[in-house]
């Protein structure tokens, strides 16, 4: 089980960070920010 949990956590963090960066990039490309502002 341990050799499953650890890779999962690492991969989950990496994927989350990557998706977050993707969201920010696409929103910025549309002239908006990731966090809503007015």
């Amino acid at each position, binding site marked *: 089980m341990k050799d499953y949990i650890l*890779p*999962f956590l690492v*991969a989950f963090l990496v994927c989350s960070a990557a*998706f977050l960066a993707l*969201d920010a990039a*696409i929103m910025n490309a*549309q002239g908006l920010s990731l966090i*809503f502002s007015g």
Partner: protein
Amino acid sequence: MGIPQATRKGHRAAALVLLVLIFALFGAGLSWLQPTLAFAQETAQEAGDVQGVAEGVYLAAPQPTETDYPQIAGVNSRVVVWLVAQLHLWFAAFILAVPIFVLIIEGVGMATGDERYDKMAYEFIKVSITAYSLTAILGGLLIITLFVFYPHLMQFLSNIFKESMFYYALLFFVESACLYVYYYGWHWLQGGFRKWVHLTVGLLLNAAGTTLMFLANAWITFMMSPAGLDASGGFSGDAWAAMHNFLWNPINLHRVIANVAYGGSIVGAYAAYKFLSASSAQDKAHYDWMGYTANLIAISALLPLPFAGYYLAAEIYAYSQQMGITLMGGIFAWLFIIQAVLIGTLFLSANYYLWCGMGRSEGAVRYNKYVKYLAIVIIGAFLVWFTPHTLVLTNQELKALGGPYHKYLGPLGIMPAKNTAVNIMILFTTLSFILYRRANKVAVVPWVKAGNAAQVALFSAGIVNILILGIYHGYFTNTVYKVAASIPQVATTLIIIVASTIIDRFMYRGARDVAPLRWGRIPDRAQYALFLLAVAFTWLMGLMGYIRSGIRQHWHIVGVMRDNSPDAYTPTLGYAANVVSVGTILFMAMVIFVFWLSHVSTVKTVPVLRESEA
């Protein structure tokens, strides 16, 4: 083979001459097209320089009155044109799509050297060959009915598109020539160089067919988003501008993808019927495999289709906000609820077929326990998708509900919720497919556990991302953010599909089979999922064809030429659905006829073939 060397050389030379001829024909068509287009641009230029000179040369859009429309007693001209056009489109979509994937399957067969692919590709094209002439007959019938019932419109359109209509006719001959060589030359053009000639003919067949469709698309999108006209609706003389109108490319893209999905589903139904009526285990195995491949083609094209549709709708909005509102927020809004039911049906039946197909493998038991969770999520997403948002209510209903939106269901009806649901539905269908592919395999690479963990992490992080984008941007920001956030949602889905496929490929490299796949071991009810897929696809196409045409409302050419005929009203959805249903039944009857013909021809030709081979 016992063919003498000299004859072989002769065959090869004949094939080469054929190839050169086809190329020359195709090239000639293109080179004739070029000067005409240049000429058209030149005249437009001149018209721009010396204004008023071009006036009078080209006719302004005619404005016929109600009595100008020819009527035939007892015939509803709108319904006749509607049905004929829709039948022509169904057949055209089918015969345009089949050569696309036949060429791919033939290429796969050539690359792998597996003769089963070649045999299947031939069987696919055989199914479409009778449909080809039927498409042409229906196309001719469509032109006749259009000219009989809407002569003024057709005169105006053919004046603008005379060049492209001429090349349409020309290309039709090129396509026919390619198709006949491709089909009847299948066994003759086998092996080595000749196979390359055959593939090239297939490529030309597809090029001609797709170009044909693009030409016809230009005419119908011109009616939706006219271009190349001056302010008063007169043609400016620039034929290319009229063709290259605003909605042309969005429709082109959408139709190519939808055609492939549709063609796959029809061939799947054919295979399903053959499977059910097959008596030998060998035939059952063959048709099971054929049905599986057809379903795979249909689903692969179905997955990107919502995105192409989204692009098309966005472009309609960009072209005319009024048309966009009519489409999504006005009288047609309920049509998208029907569409959601149909697409949900497509996804459910495709997934059901995959789950049933896991029975072909001994190793599938490992994954059976997950299927029910997949089913729950897909059905849940489906329910969110067809939750209506804005309802037209009577005052009493309004009071009872406390507003036009339902207190609890209302928030699920808005677009961000639907986008989220569609993305999740697509991801879980991908998951179904991954499980299916793994059913019979055992990965042997040392990093299996880490790889699985990475895949689970990829899916969960992606789904969390899609949910956050949907919930946060959908409910706590403004419209601009809501629309903008749908793009990273789509991007996330596409990245997960691509990334998980890549991981899977590497992880299952050299994987061990649990047991040989047992083609043919699939319950009969799975075949009915294939019928459901084909019927739902046909009906859905009819429905979307109606809205594509219907959003023009009382216009022949939006804003330019008014439809003053007695039939220029927008019918209720129930009425439209009835016409679509009648069309679907007619189409199915004709398809059954086509399949029956191809069956009859096999019975006759197979012994002849055997003789010549022997």
